[in-house]
């Protein structure tokens, strides 16, 4: 029934007509309701009832005309909006929750129901019910349901149960099942389609469970599966469903019942345990003593190389243990000492590999059997064991090695023929080996406590003791040759190696007496050979020369007897030539011996070399070209010019002989500065400024081994009779004696260069006194007296003759003492001419003594043999000069004249 009302719009009237009395009744009810116009945009409200105005707390008519979607607050679920939207589009009726209305009880969730009505769904009725009131209404029911759930859980533990009617294809379940599955408990209790069973199962598990259920439907009796279900809160829960089928009398399954247990926690724990076992390689197992089987984990089986099983016979496990090792599942039921921690060796069942396993665990009282249950783990310790074994082996072999070494050392100690000793730092022998008895006649026991040096030859004792000091400083001594006295009094040469250690030093001594003897013998033999060679050579040369001298003198005598004086001079000249050559030969010998009396003078090497040019050219063969290269600004050097000439000539002759097929001989002079680096690389060379004279040839050259011997005396590459082998050694001797040195550079096929380095002289060249014949020398003034001391009568007579010829008063003495007597007399003596080498008192001593009371006495030494100090500047004091034998008569006369005429000593 409709009430005409001027305020009622035409659409509302139309709605009322379409809605009829049902709409009217609804509008009058306590349910908040609104009529909506679905044809107009925004579906405006046509009318609301009093309950709606009360709910929204709005004035009458305030909501009319508002769009439907402005009625409620935003935040409605989108699927709800879609469904409500469908309803507002004239689709099927829909309901849904909205978060609240914009007016009145805003914010209170509401249930909205929209149902289109009228021709072509032109209108809709919307009802709004606060959810709270609904909740309040169902609170009692809910409480009852919760109580039921609680009771169910109490009864069934944590398990939910189901009952599946196979023929009706329906499933009933209890509250706990419903709770796990997120089902309405009431619906679950009253029955649901059987597909509900699979609805929340994880897709990965579903086919497996479908298969198992199919098995039940087809006649399988037992069902026991684990799978995941999605809980109402969205999480995945692991459940274990265990069930069985119930057949009818014909044996066909009609019901499938079972219980569902949440095993998520259990699963998580066992998963952790599994991961722990796998990751840690730890297998778990347990067994009760006396029972035949053990419960084992998968990892346990893997460790033993067994097929995966959950239960294994104890026998199977123990059968893998290697003989002699402890059983893994041992049974010490006899009450003996029981160790839960054992290590044992097993042979893996699959690959036969032998491994070490450790077992750890606990023995606990088993509640079920009153026995002892072992619960434990095993893990592989093979690597550890191997490492242990390796280390142990290392240790053992170390000891073994040390022992072996010790034995070896002991053997060496007692068997060696060398002397071994350990001494305190002061030389006290602490230990000695048996070799002492054999070598020196002392048993080790006799000499322990004795000082080492006590056994040493007197002369060598100090030398040995000197080494103690360096041993104390930590320096070892090698190759120390010391004579030790044998018990029988004979000496043994012992070559020692002494090595210090903290408190003591160790010595190893080898008997080298034999070697020493051989060395001496060899040295003697070499000396004799050298002397033989030398004397042979000299004798040969002298014989030649003497033949000339004797022959000439013989002829002279004959001619004089015949009175043929015309040819005397020829023979005299021949004799003189031979004698001069003999003098040159002795000079060379002395040069080699480095005992030649040198008469060093400032020398200009350029002049010297140039003056030799003619001589050299004559000496060289036709096919050898001589080149002289003299350096400008060449320094002076101090040396004996005659010796230098001789050296250059020697080298030139060697060069000539090295160039049998011709070549170039180059003689070159140069200034040389030898720095300390060069000097350090050489032996016996002082750094400094030198004059170098180089003699080079383009000849055959010398290999290194020849160069090494080139300076050795008597070494020669020339055929016997062609050379004395003294050439180079004489050059070497001269250079050394002149504080210079010689270097040799040679290459086979390229040639040889010899360089003589002579020290630079800072000074001027003395003017050379012109030589003249004996007749040119000024005769002595009257009374000028010369004392001649010479033990050789021929020489003495010769000198006396010369001096008397020159008009001197001459006194003579045959030796030092008689000379001294004359000197001590008051006689006038202007000059003492004395031989250096005199018997009794030598020339030098005589001179010194004479000077003590005749301080201004001038002295001329005559010598054929310069002692070491002959050339030293200290030897010849002012007023002293020296002339070497053999000398020319006129040279002697000239020298004496010059000395007497020279200014007095000390003026």
């Amino acid at each position, binding site marked *: 029934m409709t009430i005409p009302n001027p305020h009622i719009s035409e659409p509302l009237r139309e709605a009322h007509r379409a809605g009829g009395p049902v709409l009217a009744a609804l509008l009058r009810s306590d349910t908040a309701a609104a009529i909506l116009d679905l044809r107009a945009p925004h579906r405006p409200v046509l009318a609301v009832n009093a309950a709606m105005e009360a709910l929204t707390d709005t004035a009458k008519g305030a909501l009319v005309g508002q769009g439907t979607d402005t009625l409620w607050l935003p935040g409605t679920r989108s699927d709800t909006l879609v469904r409500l939207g469908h309803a507002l589009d004239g689709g099927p009726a829909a309901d849904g929750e909205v978060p609240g209305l914009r007016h009145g009880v805003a914010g209170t969730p509401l249930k909205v129901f929209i149902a289109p009505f009228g021709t072509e769904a032109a209108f809709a009725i919307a009802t709004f019910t606060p959810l709270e009131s609904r909740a309040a209404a169902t609170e009692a029911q809910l409480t009852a349901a919760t109580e039921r759930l609680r009771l169910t859980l109490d009864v069934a533990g944590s398990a939910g149960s189901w009952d599946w009617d196979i023929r009706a294809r329906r499933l009933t379940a209890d509250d706990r099942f419903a709770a796990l599955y997120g089902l309405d408990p009431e619906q679950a209790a009253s029955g649901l389609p059987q*597909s509900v069973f699979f609805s929340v199962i994880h897709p990965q598990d579903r086919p497996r469970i479908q298969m198992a259920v*199919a098995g039940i439907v087809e*006649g*399988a*009796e*037992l069902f*026991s599966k684990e799978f995941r279900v999605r809980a109402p809160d969205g999480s995945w829960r692991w459940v274990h469903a265990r069930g069985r089928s119930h057949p009818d009398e014909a*044996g066909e399954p009609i019901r499938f019942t079972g219980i569902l247990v949440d095993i998520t926690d259990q699963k998580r724990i066992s998963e952790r345990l599994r991961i722990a076992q796998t990751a840690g390689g730890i297998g778990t197992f347990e067994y009760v003593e006396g029972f035949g089987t053990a419960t084992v984990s998968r990892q346990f089986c893997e460790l033993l190389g067994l097929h995966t099983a959950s239960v294994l016979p*104890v026998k199977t496990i123990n059968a893998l243990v290697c003989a002699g090792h402890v059983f893994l599942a041992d049974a010490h039921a006899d009450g003996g000492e029981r160790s839960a921690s054992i290590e044992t060796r097993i042979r893996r069942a699959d690959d036969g590999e032998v491994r070490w396993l450790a077992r750890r665990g606990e023995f606990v009282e088993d509640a079920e059997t009153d026995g002892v249950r072992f619960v434990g783990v095993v893990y592989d310790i093979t690597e550890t064991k191997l490492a242990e074994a390796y280390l142990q082996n290392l240790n053992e072999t170390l000891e073994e090695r040390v022992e072996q070494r010790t034995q070896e050392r002991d053997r060496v100690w007692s068997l060696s023929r060398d002397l071994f000793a350990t001494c305190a730092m002061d030389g006290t022998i602490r230990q000695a080996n048996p070799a002492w008895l054999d070598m020196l006649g002392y048993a080790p026991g006799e000499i322990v406590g004795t000082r080492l040096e006590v056994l040493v030859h007197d002369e060598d004792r100090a030398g040995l003791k000197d080494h103690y000091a360096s041993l104390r400083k930590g320096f070892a001594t090698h190759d120390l040759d010391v004579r030790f006295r044998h018990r029988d009094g004979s000496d043994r040469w012992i070559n020692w190696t002494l090595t210090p250690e903290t408190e003591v030093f160790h010595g190893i001594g080898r008997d080298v007496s034999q070697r020493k003897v051989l060395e001496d013998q060899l040295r003697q033999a070499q000396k004799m050979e050298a002397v033989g060679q030398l004397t042979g050579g000299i004798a040969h040369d002298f014989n030649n020369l003497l033949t000339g001298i004797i022959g000439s003198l013989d002829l002279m005598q004959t001619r004089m007897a015949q009175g043929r004086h015309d040819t005397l001079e020829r023979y005299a000249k021949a004799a003189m030539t031979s004698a001069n050559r003999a003098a040159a030969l002795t000079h060379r010998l002395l040069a080699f011996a480095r005992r030649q009396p040198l008469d060093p003078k400032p020398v200009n090497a350029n002049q010297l070399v140039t003056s030799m040019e003619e001589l050299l050219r004559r000496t060289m063969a036709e096919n050898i070209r001589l080149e002289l290269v003299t350096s400008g600004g060449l320094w002076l050097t101090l040396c004996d010019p005659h010796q230098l000439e001789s050296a250059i000539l020697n080298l030139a002759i060697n060069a000539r002989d090295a160039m049998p097929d011709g070549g170039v001989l180059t003689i070159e002079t140069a200034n040389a500065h030898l720095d300390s680096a060069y000097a350090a690389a050489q032996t016996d060379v002082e750094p400094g400024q030198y004059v170098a004279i180089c003699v080079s040839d383009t000849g055959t050259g010398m290999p290194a081994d020849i160069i090494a011997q080139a300076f050795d005396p008597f070494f020669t590459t020339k055929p016997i009779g062609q050379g004395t082998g003294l050439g180079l050694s004489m050059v070497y001797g001269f250079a050394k004696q002149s504080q210079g040195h010689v270097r040799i550079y040679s290459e086979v096929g390229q040639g040889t260069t010899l360089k003589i380095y002579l020290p630079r002289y800072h000074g001027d060249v003395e003017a050379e006194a012109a030589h003249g014949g004996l007749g040119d020398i000024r005769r002595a003034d009257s009374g000028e007296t010369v004392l001649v001391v010479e033990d050789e009568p021929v020489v003495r007579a010769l000198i006396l003759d010369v001096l008397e010829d020159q008009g001197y008063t001459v006194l003579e003495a045959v030796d030092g003492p008689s000379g001294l007597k004359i000197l001590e007399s008051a006689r006038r003596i202007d000059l003492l001419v004395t031989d250096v080498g005199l018997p009794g008192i030598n020339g030098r001593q005589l001179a010194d003594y004479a000077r003590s009371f005749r301080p201004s006495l001038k002295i001329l030494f005559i010598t054929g043999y310069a002692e070491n100090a002959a050339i030293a500047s200290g030897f010849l004091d002012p007023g002293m000069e020296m002339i070497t034998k053999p000398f020319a008569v006129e040279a002697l006369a000239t020298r004496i004249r010059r000395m007497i005429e020279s200014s007095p000593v000390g003026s």
Partner: protein
Amino acid sequence: MSYDIDLSDLERDALTELVNIGVSRSAASLRKMVGEQVLLSVPSVEVMSRKAAATLVGEREADQLVAVQQTFEGVFAGRALLIFPEASSLELVRAVAGDELSGEDLIDIENEALAETGNVVLNGCLATMANMLQRSLTMSLPQVLRGDGALLFAAREESDREGLVLFLYINFSIRHRDIRGYIAMLMDVPSLAALKQLIRSFIERVTAESEAGTSSAASG
């Protein structure tokens, strides 16, 4: 010629269920024989070589083994073994023949009882599987064997040598008696391939049914 005989997880599950159905049928038959509740279940199925099967049994069973053997022919062929540890076999015989029998009597009838029990279990199992797979099999008479795994799985013929073993671990539960045993089916490769094919069609059938059921439930 190569055969696809590797079972997927799902195929193995399906095979486990097939055997489960089979042994359930056997259990029902046994139940009638012993007049007691008999439960049989198959927790796992494996396909392995003869040698592996022999060592596996050897590892798990320290005792002598007793086996009932039957050969079968059909779409797949081979021999089936129901294997017990010796101790379990006596227990089984006692359960079937009754506890009141003396030891001697028990030994007298042991073979007979075992053959009968084996026949029930294997026949039920194989027949059901064949049925489920919609094929038929012919079974020989049962035969009792004793020995270790190596002996039981020894190849009979040259053609057997390459064969594989379908190895099932089964749990018997007879009125509080714990009896464990194994079912082994020795088949050649072609037979296994044929079996795998059948299993796949079984899976398709079952999942299709379930999906159909699920969708109809959702719409209803």
